[in-house]
């Protein structure tokens, strides 16, 4: 045994060491237990050194690495800034393209639905001049554009063509200080004149201080100017304080919100109805129908269907005087003795000095009440409800709705004598429910204009 150990000492030690480690492994595997002591020693010996190495690395190589990283970051930052700028430019370009496509689609839809004949145009440049608000559009006389045509967008009016060249036109925007157009408010139908101010807002002038205009109320074109068809939106009221003699109504043009890119030039305009709105000041006094009693009927009042106006009655009186005095009007040379007009009765039933023919008295029209204040048995053309006319609305619209171009004289509407005025509708105060949805005392008859452009 000693011989074996001395001869194979190295191999014996190797076998012992290997066997010991095999037993150690077998023990760990068999018992599923670890040898914590060896691991603790090893870890305790290694980890402090590892921690020190990590600290050294952090404050030496890490510092250098951070320096190079920062150098790289600086270059990367510059590269990212360049890329960011390029992406911004690309993004803005794509947004502009998308917005252009949206506007073009809106224009196309509006052009299809609008009764007016229009042509689409694109703004290609601004006019010179610091205060002038004019732009050039890419449609000219070759496209049918003429000077004085309206320029609109689906959102509202934009301006009017002031010069038409073959391939382009010069459009004066509504913000130009020399621009003017007729407008009407949505709720109370207050008429005014739109004037440009040289800045973003426009002024509606010539509106009495007594008129009621709300903040946020819409104004539409009235068609008075014979340029813009009636019914196009203009803008919303932003301020309406009372001025010295007229209200100072400022509106924000709706057609120029966000700039003007694509527009429509109205080649042939068609009036449209101003969208109805809520009546802001229901201050109309609808008079009740007069009671037709014998006591209230003035003496000599014409029967329904007979003479209607004072002129007719005066003419009838003159005729009776001529018959009584055997005088034929229009005959005899100049200087012939005229009838004795001092013997004619008063038109209002007051007997003239002298005798009054009984038949003349019988034919006297109503007296003691102003003609305009009493209900007319037969309304005159265009004045169906004379008894409901307010002073500020008694003047008829100088331009008949439904026409832009000069039209031939309108044939008089047939006088339809009403035997009895219908009682006013207490809800809307309008006798003719089909005349207008808005409580407007003076309701112009809806006569289609022969010059209406489709």
């Amino acid at each position, binding site marked *: 045994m000693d011989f074996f150990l001395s001869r194979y000492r190295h191999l014996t030690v*190797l076998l012992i060491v290997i066997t010991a480690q095999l037993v*150690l*492994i077998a023990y760990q595997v068999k018992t599923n237990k670890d040898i914590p002591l*060896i691991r603790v020693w*090893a870890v305790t010996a290694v980890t402090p050194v590892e921690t020190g190495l990590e600290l050294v690395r952090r404050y030496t190589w890490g510092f250098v690495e951070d320096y190079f990283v920062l150098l790289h970051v600086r270059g990367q930052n510059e590269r990212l800034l360049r890329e960011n700028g390029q992406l911004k430019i690309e993004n803005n370009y794509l947004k502009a393209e998308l917005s252009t496509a949206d506007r073009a689609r809106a224009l196309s839809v509006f052009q299809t639905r609008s009764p007016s004949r229009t042509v689409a145009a694109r703004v290609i440049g601004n006019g010179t001049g610091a205060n002038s608000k004019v732009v050039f559009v890419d449609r000219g006389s070759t496209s049918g554009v003429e000077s004085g045509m309206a320029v609109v967008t689906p959102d509202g009016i934009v301006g009017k063509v002031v010069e038409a060249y073959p391939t382009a036109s010069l459009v004066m925007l509504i913000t130009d200080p020399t621009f003017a157009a007729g407008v009407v408010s949505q709720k109370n139908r207050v008429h005014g004149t739109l004037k440009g101010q040289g800045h973003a807002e426009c002024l509606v002038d010539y509106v009495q201080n007594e008129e009621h205009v709300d903040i946020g109320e819409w104004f539409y074109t009235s068609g008075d100017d014979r340029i813009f068809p009636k019914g196009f939106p203009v803008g919303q009221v932003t301020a309406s304080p009372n001025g010295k003699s007229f209200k100072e109504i400022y509106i924000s043009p709706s057609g120029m919100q966000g700039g003007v890119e694509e527009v429509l030039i109205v080649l042939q305009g068609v009036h449209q109805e101003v969208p109805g709105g809520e009546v802001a000041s229901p201050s109309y006094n609808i008079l009740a129908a007069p009671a037709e009693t014998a006591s209230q009927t003035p003496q000599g009042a014409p029967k329904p269907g007979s003479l209607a106006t004072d002129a007719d009655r005066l003419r009838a009186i003159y005729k009776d005087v001529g018959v009584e005095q055997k005088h034929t009007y229009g005959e005899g040379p100049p200087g012939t003795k005229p009838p004795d007009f001092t013997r004619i009765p008063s038109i209002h039933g007051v007997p003239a000095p002298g005798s009054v023919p009984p038949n003349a008295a019988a034919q006297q029209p109503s007296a003691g009440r102003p003609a305009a204040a009493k209900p007319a048995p037969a309304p005159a053309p265009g004045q169906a409800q004379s008894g409901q006319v307010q002073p500020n609305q008694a003047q008829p619209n100088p331009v008949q709705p439904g026409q832009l171009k000069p039209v031939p004289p309108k044939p008089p509407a047939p006088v339809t004598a009403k035997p009895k005025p219908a009682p006013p509708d207490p809800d809307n105060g309008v006798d003719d429910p089909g005349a207008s949805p808005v409580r407007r005392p003076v309701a112009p008859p809806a006569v289609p204009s022969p010059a209406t452009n489709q």
Partner: protein
Amino acid sequence: MTEYTERLLSESPRKEAADRFRIVWLVVIPLIAVLSQVYVPRFIPFLAYLELPLLITVHFALTSAGPIPALFYGMSIGLVQDSLSHQPIGMYGIVKTLVGYFAASVSMRFDVQNPVVTFILAFFFYFFHQFFYWVLSRALLGEALGFDAQQTVIFGLLNAAVALPLFRVLDKLKVAS
């Protein structure tokens, strides 16, 4: 027997300086090797193939006075490696014990100062180390690990290439000490 063979089988000059290799380096160098194995791949992952503890074991065995110190040296380094791994303690210990023993036995016969012999020995012991560890894992632990011989050969060549300058540096360190 030729002159070259006689020179290969002659006494290695490393043996003469072995006693001068201070105990400090015997502790510090394996510790650095183990640390580099667990620390460097965190930042340089491709250096995980480098088996510095094995190369240190081989170098010590080749320069040691006999197989017994070499096998104990290998066993110590292997147990430290086992302690820092999730395997049962003793796997690397057995393998590196065998490596130390055989390397020390080979160094008795060959002139390990020759770079070619050093390269071949480093490659052989790396392959032996990986293969025997795989055998032990399958036999003792029952782990169905695969053995990629091609990859092991490549890594063995890389470790052998690293062993040449490393052994040179360790030799100079030994002489300086």
